């Protein structure tokens, strides 16, 4: 049984469409990154999966039952974006409260606090916590009760790189135990290789839903090749690429920048090596994650409709 099935879901607030005809399946143990700008519809989609917001049309099934039903709530966990727990409680009190709500014993609460690295601070009031520490409480409560589906809304914003690394280790543990995990983020660089699949929302439309490799391939963004040669030879090198009609740039008299497609790369490299010692250095830069993300998130929803159907 799929952990989550979303079929043609649309959410309209008055006249504004927040989520448009989104379909998405997630299997147990899968880790999905849900990407999009602020206001792209990520949080709305997550809240519909939780049953907090009703879709205008379409259907959602969580582990075979309706979102927000008792069974769904027992098996789903949620880490809200920017959650601020009551400052006058200690981390331990807050965590034990959540454990009691999920019918877990207090020992489990303490264990999870230790797992997220908060055991040293659990008897302090939350008001004294740093943002990262608060986020860890949020994460700890999302681990309660062996969830089958975990929805983490911008979990890594405000975390330093080391905490982020630890966070993804915990996510990996979760998915190894069969939990399907959705992580929303506004930056592809934050999730990159830590997820199995990347879904991108743009103005409420699902414009991509593939693994990173497939996304790279189908976007076919240009690769940048930087060639450095002596100022006498550089013109010769540049002229030899004239017939290929590539986008090129001359930088500082010694360097040539070429933009080419993936399938032209080897060809061009062969041509360059023919110049032998005249070439001082070569740099190859594949499209960055930022560029890839920008490509998908700014692509028009209509193009994506055809992409989705196949």
């Amino acid at each position, binding site marked *: 049984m799929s952990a989550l099935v979303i079929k043609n879901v649309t959410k309209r607030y008055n006249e504004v469409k927040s989520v448009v005809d989104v379909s998405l399946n997630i299997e147990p143990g899968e880790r999905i990154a849900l990407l999009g700008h602020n206001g792209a519809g990520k949080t709305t989609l997550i*809240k519909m999966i*939780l*049953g*907090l*917001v*009703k879709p205008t049309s379409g259907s959602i099934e969580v582990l075979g039952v309706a979102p927000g039903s*008792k069974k769904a*709530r*027992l098996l*789903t*966990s*949620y880490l*809200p*974006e*920017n*959650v*601020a*727990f*009551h400052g*006058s*409680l200690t981390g331990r*009190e*807050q965590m034990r*409260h*959540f454990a*009691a*709500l*999920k019918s877990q014993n207090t020992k489990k609460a303490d264990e999870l606090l230790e797992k997220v690295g908060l055991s040293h601070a659990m008897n302090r009031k939350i008001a004294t916590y740093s943002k990262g520490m608060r986020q860890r409480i949020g994460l700890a*409560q999302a681990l309660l009760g062996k969830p089958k589906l975990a929805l983490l809304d911008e979990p890594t914003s405000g975390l330093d790189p080391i905490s982020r690394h630890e966070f993804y280790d915990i996510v990996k543990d979760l998915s190894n135990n069969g939990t399907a995990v959705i992580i929303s983020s506004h930056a592809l660089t934050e999730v990159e290789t830590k997820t199995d699949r990347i879904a991108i929302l743009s103005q409420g439309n699902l414009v991509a839903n593939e693994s990173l490799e497939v996304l790279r391939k189908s976007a076919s963004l240009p690769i940048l090749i930087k060639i450095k040669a002596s100022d006498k030879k550089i013109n010769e090198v540049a002229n030899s690429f004239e017939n290929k009609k590539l986008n090129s740039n001359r930088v500082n008299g010694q360097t040539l920048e070429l933009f080419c497609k993936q399938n032209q790369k080897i060809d061009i490299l062969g041509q360059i090596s023919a110049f032998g010692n005249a070439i001082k250095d070569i740099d190859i830069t594949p499209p960055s994650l930022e560029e890839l993300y920008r490509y998908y998130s700014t692509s028009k929803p209509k193009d994506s409709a055809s992409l989705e159907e196949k």
Partner: protein
Amino acid sequence: MFTIAKIEILIARRNMWVTVSVVLMALFSVVLTLTGGAPTGTLGVDPLIIATSSITTLSVYFIPLVALLLAFDAISGEIERGTLALSLTYPLSRAQILLGKFIAHFLVLAFAIGVGLLLSGTLAVIKNGGATGLSFTPLLWLFFTSLMLGATFLGLGYLISALVRQPSAASGLAIVVWLVFVVLYDIILLGALVGDKGGFFSDNIFPFLLVANPSDAFRLLNMPEMGSKELTSGISAAGDISGRLGQLISLFLWPILALFLAWLKLKRIES
């Protein structure tokens, strides 16, 4: 539900405002018990009756204020902090969240009022040199009706909290509601009464409008039935028309109605 109540009590225990109101309530009760006898001297009237009359007058203003200030943050604060959405993803109904908070706040109120009245009772016994000749019924009655009054304004506080969703706006509206119920309402009724000069309004509408306000129903219910009626004749004469039953119904229905409306509103929040 009790899990929610437990955590809310933990929060309330560390709430400055709760501490302040418990201390104030105790202080006022003590002062009013000690000085309450002054106008009548030591003659005749049970000192506890005098004390409860004074404490009633104070409670009409104080208890609604405490209750509203406990409640205004209950829902709006959780919306702002983002914890309401989180609570709603737990296997827990909205009614349970509301009732859990209500139980906790109600117990806090009961504690504040209880401490005050207990002190008041103890002092009266000491002053009297023993419990003989004292009637504790007015004190218990005051305790009970104060709780109903408090419950009403807790419910109204939740309703406000769910309606405006922002703690700052909710606190402002809470003060407005307080002013209307315990101050302005009476002034307007009084104005109408003066303007009417004992006509149809005074005899047939006014008494019911009076008990319709929970704070006035509370005031009437705590009027001494005998003895010092002369002190309060105007209002209690009007109170006779609606009767004890009307007053009790008003004070009982208000908390239920307010909580019910708050629940209706909470149910419709898509957070």
